[in-house]
């Protein structure tokens, strides 16, 4: 109950971590099933329909329900601490964002047991995703589930933007802000300007499927390429929504374990901004083969290649940070160091794909699959591992085992390269993606076997990580405030795990890497910027949960509104939009309650602060 009503950003972070972790596990199982099917030619382990559902759900789950919540978990756990704030700007909305994400994710995954999962690929290209080719409710689960989950992401993005703009500790100018806070800020800005586009895209597709509208239906005058434009004007920035937080994590971990300040801090900041800007300019490089014409292809080709410049700046800055530093290869730093070459390889194939004429050869082959897995798994997931190992003691007050952590790293990264390195060659030899099997004796057999073995090894790495978490959770909480001993930023100045008010006194920031600066000046703690006083806290509330339940019910009601049911009661409830109305009533009723009854919150008094 405590967890359902919480508005504390640190608890919401743990909720995000758990929910994201479970969805990540589901997406991982789907990946393993895909790889088992592809272990040998003409395999009959899965049929084509199930394979289509698995690849669709694997991509959708991993991106929207797996890695994004884990990113949000890290942001929620760390950002208010790093900027010296007592909470986020809108604790209520923070909880609402989590619950809408969770119920959207549950709705999407209900499709497995409610008559067929979506089967049109994670990009849901029309007309493949229209009722003609995808007659089950699968794609409806996709459109409505993602709509609800996307709402949560948008709320989270706005919340972080407001938090970072207004709630930084005194003295923390933008150019003194830790890199992870910077990347969170820019990521949130991308979310704000990219997610509304997919909101519209999903609405249009829903209307096409449920209300027989004609947006993508050629017979009615619609245009399928329109979907691709809308999808990728969101979808390409989404790539940077995923990778920028990983860049932020790496930029925190490497300086800490090199005992040096981040090389080229201001160039890192501007590279981040530039990447975000260019991210919006390059969506049509996903559509070179749609027939946009040579001028459009050339422009999008060049603008895509430009992104390599700020990304290269980042890579070199990390290398220069390590150069001459007292580098310690703890588990987080191992993951960070592994990230650099792996992500660079993904970037190089990205430049190859950005060349429009070459893309006509690479398009829809395993080369593309290898490329984006190098970026997203070899980049983002390694970054998340680095971040989780790094901040675990701060979040839970317990150090993860270094020994198991190193085992996790080596099995995962070896498994990763085994799985995806060979896929570059499979793609160049002509193996198509999204096809459920292949013929023997095309030189695909051995490399596919290697790839599947690699995937199993990555699974083993995940199991070791889970074992590490399980064993750690059974030990008493013993992490020091600054468990890595070389912490540079504000989160390491307070106890692990932090008290619910974070900072007893808001610290005064006197430079970049505020805590490190104080340590170098011989101080043990931050100078406070205010006297000890009464701290105002927001009250816990069930309303965010109820609002999300309402949207969930409304979504289900709308999805089945045109179905024929064997029971007349069900037909009455669904076909007259009664279920939909009921769901919306719960949501709007909760909003009304929130509006009418102000939350006065509660106070933690100074005596209590001293008592702990």
């Amino acid at each position, binding site marked *: 109950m405590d967890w359902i009503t919480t508005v504390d950003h640190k608890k919401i972070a743990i909720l995000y971590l758990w929910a994201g972790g479970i969805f990540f596990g589901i997406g991982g199982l789907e990946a393993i099933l895909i790889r088992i099917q592809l272990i040998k030619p003409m395999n009959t382990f899965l049929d084509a329909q199930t394979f289509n559902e698995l690849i669709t759900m694997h991509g959708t789950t991993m991106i929207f329900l797996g890695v994004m919540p884990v990113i949000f978990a890290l942001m929620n756990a760390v950002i208010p601490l790093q900027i010296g704030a007592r909470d986020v700007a809108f604790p209520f909305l923070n909880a609402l964002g989590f619950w809408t994400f969770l119920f959207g994710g549950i709705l999407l995954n209900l499709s497995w047991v409610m008559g067929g999962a979506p089967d049109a690929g994670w990009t849901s290209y029309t007309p493949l995703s229209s009722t003609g080719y995808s007659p089950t409710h699968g794609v409806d689960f996709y459109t409505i589930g993602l709509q609800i989950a996307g709402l949560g992401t948008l709320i989270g993005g706005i919340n972080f933007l*407001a938090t970072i*703009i207004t709630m930084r500790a005194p003295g923390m100018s933008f150019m003194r802000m830790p890199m992870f806070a910077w990347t969170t800020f820019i990521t949130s800005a991308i979310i704000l300007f990219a997610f509304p586009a997919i*909101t519209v895209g999903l609405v249009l597709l829903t*209307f096409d499927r449920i209300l027989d509208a*004609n947006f993508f239906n050629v017979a*009615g005058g*619609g245009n399928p390429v*329109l979907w691709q434009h*809308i999808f990728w004007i969101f979808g390409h920035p989404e790539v940077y929504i995923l990778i920028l937080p990983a860049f932020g994590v790496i930029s925190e971990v490497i300086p800490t374990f090199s005992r040096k300040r981040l090389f080229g801090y201001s160039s890192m900041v501007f590279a981040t901004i530039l990447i975000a800007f260019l991210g919006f300019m390059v969506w049509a490089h996903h559509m070179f083969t749609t027939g946009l014409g040579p001028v459009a292809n050339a422009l999008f080709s060049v603008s895509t290649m430009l992104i390599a410049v700020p990304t290269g700046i980042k890579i070199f800055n990390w290398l220069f940070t390590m150069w001459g530093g007292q580098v310690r290869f703890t588990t987080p730093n191992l993951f960070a160091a592994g990230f650099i070459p792996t992500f660079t390889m993904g970037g190089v194939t990205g430049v190859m794909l950005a060349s429009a004429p070459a893309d006509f050869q690479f398009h829809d082959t395993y080369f593309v699959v290898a490329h984006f897995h190098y970026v997203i798994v070899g980049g983002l997931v390694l970054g998340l591992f680095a971040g989780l190992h790094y901040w675990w003691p701060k979040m839970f007050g317990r150090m993860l085992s270094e020994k198991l952590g190193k085992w996790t790293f080596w099995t995962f990264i070896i498994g990763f390269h085994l799985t995806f390195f060979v896929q570059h060659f499979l793609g160049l030899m002509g193996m198509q993606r999204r096809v459920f099997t292949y013929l023997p004796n095309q030189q695909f057999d051995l490399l596919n076997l290697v790839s599947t073995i690699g995937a199993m090894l990555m699974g083993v790495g995940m199991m070791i990580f889970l074992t590490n978490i399980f064993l750690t959770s059974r030990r008493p909480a013993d992490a020091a405030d600054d468990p890595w001993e070389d912490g540079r930023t504000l989160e390491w100045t307070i106890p692990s795990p932090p008290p619910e008010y974070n900072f007893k006194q808001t610290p005064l920031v006197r430079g970049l890497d505020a805590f490190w600066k104080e340590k170098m000046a011989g101080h043990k703690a931050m100078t406070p910027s205010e006297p000890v006083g009464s701290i105002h806290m927001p009250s816990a509330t069930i309303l965010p949960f109820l609002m999300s339940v309402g949207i969930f019910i409304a979504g289900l009601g709308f999805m089945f509104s045109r179905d024929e049911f064997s029971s007349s009661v069900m037909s009455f409830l669904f076909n007259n939009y009664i279920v939909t109305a009921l769901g919306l009533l719960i949501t709007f009723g909760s909003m009304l309650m929130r509006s*009418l009854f102000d939350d006065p919150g509660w106070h933690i008094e100074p005596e209590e602060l001293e008592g702990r």
Partner: protein
Amino acid sequence: MTTAHAEAANGTLPHEPEKATLEGRNKVLAFWLFLGGEAVLFGTLFATFLALRNQTNEGPSANELFHLPLVAAATFLLLVSSLTSVFAIQAMHRGRVTMLRNWLLVTVLLGLCFLVLEIYEFSVYIRHEEFGMTTSAFSSAFYTLVGFHGAHVAFGILWISVLIGQLMHKGLTVVTAPKIYVSAMYWHFIDVVWVFIFTVVYLLGKVG
């Protein structure tokens, strides 16, 4: 000027009560950000409409369909409602609660009239012109874009009505003031979007 305002605000409320607390400032800032997202939302809908506006699929075209005097009347109502919401905020800054309530009521009323005209317009199209959601890509794009705006107006009416109730119940405080201020921002945004709809959908439909 400022002192006159402060006196008018019966001495208890600051001149700009919506920005008096951190919560209030956060609310206003976050709402600006939210409107940025809304701009992308409507931008995508406009792009969709522009891409599909000539795809009539042998159904009625914009030129045959639209009746400008009716739309002009609706436009007038909505533009005036934006002005009255400005009066409401001015009244709030002067601390005149009754005047604030009255101007908000006028705003809501004008919004309602606009909505009635829009519903009437849609019903004429559907009944007499056989122009429904499923007729053509143009019709789908038209109803989605204009309907999304209409839904925003409807939500705004409900929202401001609740705020009027709250204002009567709790009075003007540093908690209620940011809410009223933000709802006025929302109402202006709806108005701006309508100016684009009037130009891109209706005027361009008649002459383009």
